[in-house]
């Protein structure tokens, strides 16, 4: 499903954010990506979405060779991926309902279905009552859940979630993780970047640990690796 071959990414300034990463993720896997702040986790997610292009190396996602993907084909490619961005990236001047519905509109879901899917997704993340609010009228955790609802509403074959519980209380975080696990069980490949040691240790999934742009460990049924 996701293959990285010796991928590096350098921004115009500073040390390379990714430094020769190779990685295979099979369809239907549930993978945690953990690592220090600034170790390149978000960069990796952005590469998989083709928001960024790698400086070198090859990336395959969902059978697309990203280095050969034509600009025209990018939207089609992205429609198979649900993403939760670390900074949410909600549409500021649309309300919660419209933010989630937008993902459905993009894949041209018939309006009748959309009017069922969106509210049911919103109530799954506990925001059924807030559907009329604008993003700036929401608390941090509420915004994060809108972002999650938008990523999940299309039931995409791949889900990339960058720190989806950073602003959520432990109870909410657990509920969200259970939701992701469920979605994974129905066939979606799930990649979750997180700092939540408790959750990573409890769920016993594949854990990829990054440090300064390289993968320092990759364990099936792993846990959060502490240096100290």
């Amino acid at each position, binding site marked *: 499903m996701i293959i990285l071959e010796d991928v590096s990414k350098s921004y115009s300034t500073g040390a390379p954010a990714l430094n020769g990463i190779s990685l295979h993720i099979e369809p239907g896997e549930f993978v945690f990506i953990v690592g220090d702040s600034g170790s390149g986790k978000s960069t990796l997610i952005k590469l998989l979405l083709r928001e960024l292009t790698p400086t070198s190396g090859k990336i395959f996602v969902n059978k697309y060779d990203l280095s050969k993907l034509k*600009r025209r084909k990018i939207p*089609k490619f992205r429609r198979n991926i649900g993403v939760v961005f670390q900074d949410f990236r*909600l549409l500021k001047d649309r309300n919660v309902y419209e933010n989630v519905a937008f993902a459905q509109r*993009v*894949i*041209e879901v018939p309006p009748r279905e959309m009017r069922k899917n969106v509210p049911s997704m919103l109530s799954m993340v506990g925001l059924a009552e807030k559907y009329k609010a604008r993003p700036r009228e929401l608390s941090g955790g509420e915004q994060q859940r809108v972002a999650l609802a938008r990523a999940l509403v299309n039931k995409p074959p791949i889900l990339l979630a960058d720190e989806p519980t950073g602003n959520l209380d432990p109870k909410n975080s657990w509920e969200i993780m259970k939701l992701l696990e469920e979605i994974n069980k129905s066939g979606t490949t799930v990649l979750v970047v997180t700092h939540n040691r408790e959750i990573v240790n409890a769920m016993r999934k594949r854990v990829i640990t990054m440090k300064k742009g390289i993968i320092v460990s990759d364990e099936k049924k792993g846990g959060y690796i502490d240096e100290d």
Partner: protein
Amino acid sequence: MRISTFGYTLKQGLKNIFRNKIFSLATIATIGACVFLFGLFYSVVMNFQNIVKEAQSGIAVTVFFDEDISDERIREIGDLISLRAEVSNIEFVSADEAWETFKREELGEYVETFGDDNPLDTCANFEIYLNDVSMQDALVTYLESIDGIRDINKSVIVANILSSMNSLISYVSIGIIFILLAVSIFLISNTVAIGITVRKEEISIMKLIGATDFVVRSPFVIEGILLGLVGAGIPLVAIYFIYNNVIEYVVGRFTILDSLLTFLSAKTVFSTLVPISIIMGVGIGFLGSFVTVRKHLKV
């Protein structure tokens, strides 16, 4: 594209206008101001040209005959002249009429110093009015070749002044209107550009979710067209009222100028001004949003 998507796009275009009120107002205001200035000068310039054209049509070439000419020959000459393409109108003036006019127009205060005789008894003539003053020379060359004509009075100076004025005004008008158009396009695309830069983030989010360029761009383009339409419509209505009132005022206040100046009717001016302005507003609204959105689509 599904019908529902199309309806959604249209609705979003409309909603965008209300979502970004400051930007929408700014765009309408800018387009409005530009169309307003453009329309104002267009009206002034059209009237100017019309006034000069009217003045030109009062200029005549006067033809005097040999002293021993027959009435028969005069009629023949008249027929020949009226066949020419550059002639709009020809009038025969008898010697008595000539003297009456001369007394009235030229002598004024001095008239009493002349007796009752007609000193102009050989001055029967044709007054030939032209379609276009600049064609005077061609006509005169032709007239000189006709037998029986003693002299041709061609009012070179006035004709030249008018024809120079005419082309000067044409040049200046074209210059001003061109500058105004350029400044307008510049200002409007400016406003649209700032407005869309603000929404750069929005555009990139949509693209990252998988929206095609077309879907992202359409609401912006619709928004641009609508803003252009409203922005062009408001000043047109304003100019219409201003135009009628100003002309009424000028005609009433400066009665002395009334005979000199013939103003165009609002209808005449607006029959060209309206389409130009609407095309300008809508075209810039469309192109402005189309081009500026493209810059941010490369996500």
